[in-house]
């Protein structure tokens, strides 16, 4: 029961955060100089046309009124019309989001399956050569700019070794539409199309690797340090004294409590991961939110910009709710105390 209240409280707080985000981005986008109506119509439009469009778009109303109108559409899930593509922002984002989502999911997968075991090994063999190699690779992962790593991987695997494709989600001319979930690999599996599945994976690998380097390093380090913290506890000492096998102690008794800082960090690094996804997508011509976002941002397409920022913010907030619920599940103290959201 407490756990349910904890989740409800956490979700309500996320709604407040998203409201705050919508206010912030709305006012930033509107206060800034430049007339959206003039930009939409181009330099050849007459003053009269501009005034008409301003009235049509509600730009002549006071800002708070504009915000309330915007918000009332937003809560119905309507992000408005894109001035650039003349289509609804919802449609544009729905077209671009799955590609980003697939990339980010794959990245998280890599971060977890590479970062956590590395951290566990580094903690288990603390101060050995393994730990030092791990420390060095983590550091390199953290300090290498994503776009630089993306270019390096592209150069190495795509041009020098010629083993992996370097752009797009599928080979040009592939006759396949991901119309079930929008994720190519998942849809290919659902349709039983193995060839497309493997093609999709091959295309995902390089961008996901470039994007995951930072996360792998950070997760490995935090897993290592929290494992070492836990290993000094009395109950681990007791387990050792009882002669419980080392493997069981490490994986059953040490890993679970060590998971909590790791999970929290995973949620927090998600923000920089989403940002870096923009850069990596540009390098690999990945048809996701980045190309749409950068294009609309440069064109001052306000509804689209607000839409992109809101969708990315919501994505981040949802992931962090999931992380907090998982933390509450793993750590009963958090859900009983209520956790300070």
């Amino acid at each position: 029961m407490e756990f349910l209240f904890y989740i409800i409280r956490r979700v309500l707080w996320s709604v407040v955060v998203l409201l705050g985000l919508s206010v912030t981005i709305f006012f930033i986008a509107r206060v800034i100089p430049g007339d959206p109506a003039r930009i939409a119509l181009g330099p050849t439009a007459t003053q009269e046309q501009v005034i008409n469009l301003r009235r049509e778009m509600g730009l002549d109303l006071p800002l708070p009124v504009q915000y309330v109108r915007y918000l009332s559409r937003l809560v119905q899930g309507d992000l408005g019309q894109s001035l650039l593509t003349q289509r609804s922002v919802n449609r544009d984002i729905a077209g671009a989001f799955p590609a980003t989502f697939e990339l980010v999911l794959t990245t998280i997968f890599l971060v977890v399956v590479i970062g956590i075991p590395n951290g566990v090994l580094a903690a288990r063999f603390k101060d050995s050569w393994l730990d030092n190699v791990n420390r060095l690779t983590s550091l390199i992962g953290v300090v290498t700019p994503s776009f630089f790593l993306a270019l390096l991987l592209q150069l190495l695997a795509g041009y020098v070794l010629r083993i992996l494709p370097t752009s797009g989600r599928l080979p040009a001319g592939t006759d396949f539409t991901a119309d079930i979930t929008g994720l190519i690999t998942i849809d290919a599996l659902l349709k039983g199309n193995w060839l497309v599945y493997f093609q999709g994976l091959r295309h995902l690998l390089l961008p996901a690797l470039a994007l995951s380097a930072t996360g792998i390093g950070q997760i490995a380090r935090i897993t290592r340090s929290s494992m070492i913290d836990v290993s000094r506890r009395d109950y681990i000492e007791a387990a050792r004294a009882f002669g419980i096998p080392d493997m069981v102690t490490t994986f059953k008794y040490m890993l679970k409590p060590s998971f909590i800082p790791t999970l929290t960090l995973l949620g927090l690094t998600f923000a920089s991961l989403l940002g870096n996804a923009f850069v990596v997508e540009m390098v690999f011509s990945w048809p996701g939110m980045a190309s749409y976002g950068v294009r609309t941002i440069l064109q001052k397409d306000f509804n689209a910009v607000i839409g992109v920022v809101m969708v990315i913010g919501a994505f981040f907030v949802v992931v962090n709710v999931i992380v907090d619920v998982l933390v509450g599940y793993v750590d009963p103290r958090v859900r009983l105390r209520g956790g300070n959201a």
Partner: protein
Amino acid sequence: MHEKRDFMSVARPPLTLPAPEATRERPAWQRNWYRFSRNPSAVIGAVLVLLVVICALFAPVIAPFPEHADAFVDFRNRHQPPSAAHWFGTDNVGRDVLSRVLFGYRISLLLVLFVLGLSVPFGVVLGLLAGYAGGWLELVIMRITDIFLAIPPLVMALAITAALSPTLINAMIAISVLWWNWHTRLVYGIVRSLKTEEYIDACRVIGASRWHILFRELLPNCMSAVLVKTTLDAGFVILIGASLSFLGIGAQPPTPDLGTMVADGAGYLPDMWWQSMFPGLAILVAILGFNLLGDGLRDLYDVEVG
């Protein structure tokens, strides 16, 4: 009145008693210098940072072709691979890549100074206020920082910069707008745990003003953590600035910006690799330096910076 503390020793004071005259310890800076010099990561970091700063300060003197930093065209020498004359090769209009990298460090450090100079003091003061004042002020400030935490910095910086029009100064403003909240959270946490300490009560009892307690008692005790965090931040500011200009939203050509240089050179991969790889490596070296130095300082002061 409690003793006035020297900045370098802030991490340790609450427990140290004045040593007897005969066994007096060495001065704080000597002890700190000794511990610093025994920490390999701090020393390597300091050397790299120093190298970057020297490159930036003396770029006009060190650079073999200082005139190549700005708009300069020499088509006969375009796409030259690395050689004795051009250590890092030349770019697609014949400019010396090494010279441009050296000048590029000026832009990166300028960005760091501007962003951290604006956002750190702002964030620190807000953190002090929120932590000490409590009540509605704490609620408002901390909830706002939570909202800013929910925004991927690069995406928001993109939105702000582009809305203002993509220039270097706007990129600086945009990153500053996003950076303060980390310092607010850091200082807030420290102040919350410090304000119940006895020496603060003592100050209040003898009638010290609120400002005195905030800026003369609490602030000095936050400085080591803020210094460590600021050093680590410098690397990330360079990273986010380079990412912005890599996307074409930041310093515009012909400004010798490292991110822009990588982006320009990327079009000539894989054959003219030097045009993008050397500026990329230069960014990496700067970030690595600040990171190692920050980690080293963290060990030295023994502080948690989140």
